[in-house]
């Protein structure tokens, strides 16, 4: 799929702006703090219903406004067009429209637009805590299959109930007779998440290794044999090595493994009054060559690895439906000349990719440019070979 138009009202520093996007590469150029990232954030919000930068919606609404509106028209295989509109209302529930039709549940409007975003924040995928990597897997699964969201919510609710029970036990307010029931619920719901996450790791491993190899390839003085490895480390202590050809363990087996893991930590759980085994305590191990990426990889390596994970996400999403739009925020400036060129090569194979850069020359790609200045799209010019359609629309 591709996005034909993005319209914003009172989103971040945009009062009102319209951005028309061509197929292939589009570049958003402008000095720092003008609103480039905001545009990608808006597109991605339309896909997943949340920001990649902030956990709450309030910062997304322009200072002084009450709500923000994001609207996009996307074109799908076969020429079908769909308009998705979200009204971001920090004080209440968001409103969603699809083709002008108000949806009773906002989430019914999500997932129509598909996008993969790579942003500087993604360094956390490598550097951050296990929670950042679990979220990466969960967000990907959610985009791939919306039902995963319900499974995760169910797990989180069970976890909260079980933790409340453990606290009640420690305080002597509740008896132990309910613990087996909540453990059953936990391992059953947990196994569903585990199976999905292990499947995701299997699916990501190949494309991530390929993307990384591709990016770092011919840097001559570097050790080229350093491949990306991925492992899913269960809270029970077992690691599942990513293997695209390996099947996913049956949920019933995973549930039994989890049950044994919970039994192992029973004493500590009663002591600390919290659930100590389960997918909420798992880790996605990332390695480059023989070393863990976290703590060992160079800045450039971390950057390339995070980028490779996002590029792999694109492949994994594309397997089950429309090709996602690729959004690359400030990527090129961080890469050396070779990596820039190889990333650019890959980008030309995508149906649509939107790139931001503070300095146009950093982006070795042809394609229409839009100039972003203080919340307006003040100028745009087609590159040499393209009659790009991004034109001036913004008002300040």
């Amino acid at each position, binding site marked *: 799929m591709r996005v034909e138009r993005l319209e914003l009202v009172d989103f971040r520093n945009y009062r009102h702006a319209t951005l028309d996007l061509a197929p292939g590469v589009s570049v958003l150029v402008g000095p720092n703090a003008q609103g480039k990232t905001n545009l990608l954030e808006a597109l991605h919000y339309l896909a997943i219903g949340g920001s990649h930068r902030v956990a709450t919606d309030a910062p997304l609404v322009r200072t002084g406004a009450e709500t923000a509106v994001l609207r996009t028209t996307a074109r799908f295989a076969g020429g079908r067009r769909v308009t998705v509109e979200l009204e971001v209302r920090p004080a209440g529930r968001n409103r969603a429209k699809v083709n002008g039709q108000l949806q009773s549940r906002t989430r019914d409007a999500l997932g129509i637009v598909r996008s993969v975003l790579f942003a500087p924040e993604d360094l956390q995928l490598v550097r951050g805590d296990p929670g950042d990597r679990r979220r990466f897997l969960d967000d990907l699964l959610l985009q791939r299959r919306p039902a995963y969201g*319900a499974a995760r919510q*169910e797990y989180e*609710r*069970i976890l*909260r*109930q*079980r933790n*409340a*029970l453990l606290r*009640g036990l420690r305080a002597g*307010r*509740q*008896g132990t*007779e*309910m613990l*087996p*029931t*909540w453990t*059953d*619920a936990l391992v059953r719901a947990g196994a569903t998440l585990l199976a999905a996450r292990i499947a995701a790791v299997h699916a990501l491993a190949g494309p991530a290794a390929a993307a990384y190899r591709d990016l770092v390839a011919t840097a001559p003085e570097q050790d080229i044999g350093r491949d990306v490895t991925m492992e899913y480390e269960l809270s029970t202590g077992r690691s599942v090595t990513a293997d695209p050809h390996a099947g996913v363990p049956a949920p019933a087996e995973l549930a039994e493994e989890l049950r044994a893991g919970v039994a192992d930590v029973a004493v500590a759980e009663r002591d600390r009054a919290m659930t100590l085994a389960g997918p909420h305590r798992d880790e996605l191990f990332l390695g480059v060559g023989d070393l863990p990426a976290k703590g060992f990889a160079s800045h450039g390596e971390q950057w390339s690895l995070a980028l490779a994970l996002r590029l792999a996400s694109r492949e994994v999403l594309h397997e089950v439906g429309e090709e996602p739009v690729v959004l690359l925020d400030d990527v090129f400036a961080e890469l050396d000349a070779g990596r820039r060129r190889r990333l650019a090569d890959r980008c030309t194979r995508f149906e649509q990719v939107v790139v931001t850069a503070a300095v146009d020359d950093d982006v070795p790609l042809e394609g229409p440019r839009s100039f972003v200045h203080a919340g307006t799209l003040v100028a745009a010019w087609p590159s040499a070979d393209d009659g790009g359609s991004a034109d001036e629309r913004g008002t300040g």
Partner: protein
Amino acid sequence: MYEGPVQDLIEELGRLPGVGPKSAQRLAFHLLAVDRADAERLARAIVQLKERVRFCARCFNVSEHEECRVCRDPRRDPSVLCVVEEPRDVQAIEKTGEFRGRYHVLGGAISPIDGVGPDQLHIRQLVARLGEEDIGEVVLATNPNIEGEATASYLGRLLKAMDVRVSRIASGLPVGGDLEYADEVTLGRAFSGRREL
């Protein structure tokens, strides 16, 4: 802040489920504006509710008598017992016409977050009934959400030791759902497709 009776009413209304401070205020001023007769009819209905309606001594359904309509009905099959969370679930199941046995209303579902454990529900009374009455099958019809499932699974475990068949209504119901909001056809189907635990 308003004064005297208006503020009192706003506060009382605000304690009702689903009524926020704004709605409470709107309702209070609405009542202030309506005819005295209308307001009195509402007040009387509330008083009557508390005076005349109580809980069935056997099954804890709402009832105007010592025992509820269902428990008193000789055409109902006393050997099958359907366990639900709330009286309103009895209403929902009655509407399907699929169930001819009797009920047992737990008064909620197990939820540690809300401080509700087995002791806070009518579970002891359920076990007592299984000892006293001639019950051959128990159908667990708690809501198909996390707390309802946990309650059913706890009861399944508890009743296993007793000489009774235990089944759970089929989960054609939407997960996270509420029996009350399930449409009659779905709920009816859930009943005929119950599976033994």
